[in-house]
């Protein structure tokens, strides 16, 4: 795989709502009212229930993993949660290569919603498979 600075890697997209959030809550034991209950989400200032930051984190990992295949290695990741993932949004994870040193690639990564608003921007470093 040839990788160059500026390359955009394949995205990872999900329509989000209780179908994904409840399953993530089930595996991660993350049954927090703001993620389960529209009233609690609204009380927290988000109009309704909203998705877990951890699931945005997982989608960014899924994107990198699907791009590299099982033999690639995620070395590190850092993200900030800027904007909530509210119900009904289509969330897409993106990545653009910012540096290449041998087989180690640094990427700017982020999730956004269907209108392009960034939800969780960050950076990641990976080692590509031989």
């Amino acid at each position, binding site marked *: 795989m040839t990788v160059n600075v500026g390359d955009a890697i394949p995205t990872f997209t*999900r329509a989000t709502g209780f*179908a*994904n959030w409840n*399953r*993530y809550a*089930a*595996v*991660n*034991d*993350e049954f927090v009212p703001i993620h389960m209950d529209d009233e609690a989400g609204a009380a927290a200032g988000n109009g309704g229930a909203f998705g877990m930051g*951890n*699931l945005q*984190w*997982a*989608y960014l*990992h*899924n994107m990198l*993993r*699907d791009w590299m295949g*099982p*033999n690639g*290695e*995620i*070395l*590190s*990741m*850092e*993200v*900030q949660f800027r904007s909530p993932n509210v119900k009904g949004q289509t969330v897409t994870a993106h990545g653009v290569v910012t540096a290449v040193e041998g087989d180690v690639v640094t990427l700017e990564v982020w999730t956004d919603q269907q209108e392009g608003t960034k939800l969780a921007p960050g950076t990641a470093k990976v080692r590509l*498979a031989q």
Partner: protein
Amino acid sequence: MSNISEAMKAAVGTVTARTTSYPISESDIRKWALAVYWPDKPPAYFIDPAEAAKTVHGGIVAPEDFNPFAWASAGHESLITNSLRAGTNDPDSTEKSLGIEGPGLTFMLNGGMVCEYGVRMRAGDVITSEASVGEYSEREGRLGLMLFSRSISTWTNQKGEMVKRTTGTLIRY
């Protein structure tokens, strides 16, 4: 002028808590993968041992973002014995929990989090998470002298290999 006291410097590296997971099962890995790829199918190498055997890992490994501490842990010990009372909204709660005086700054904000990954987690692994006090640093900023303090969570497997290190930064001013 610095907000970093000798006591704070001496506390760096202190392990504050240790948590041990139950053994990871293939079922945990399978369900995690099903959930984070929902509604599409996850890659077969998270589900099917034969597919996983074809990868460099030679078998099923957990997704990097997998949490072996979800629902329950097999053991937890707090290693802090002489903590001072502090509310979680107290900017000095980190130091007070260690039994030392904090810098007494007024404002705090989340400075973000970074994860570094080591070896992968597999079925049968027992993961130990150690919480420790990271480095302090400070910098003159728009808001005056800003204090950066770090808390570190280090996961190791039963062989003592590093699985994941998460560093969180708290900014106070």
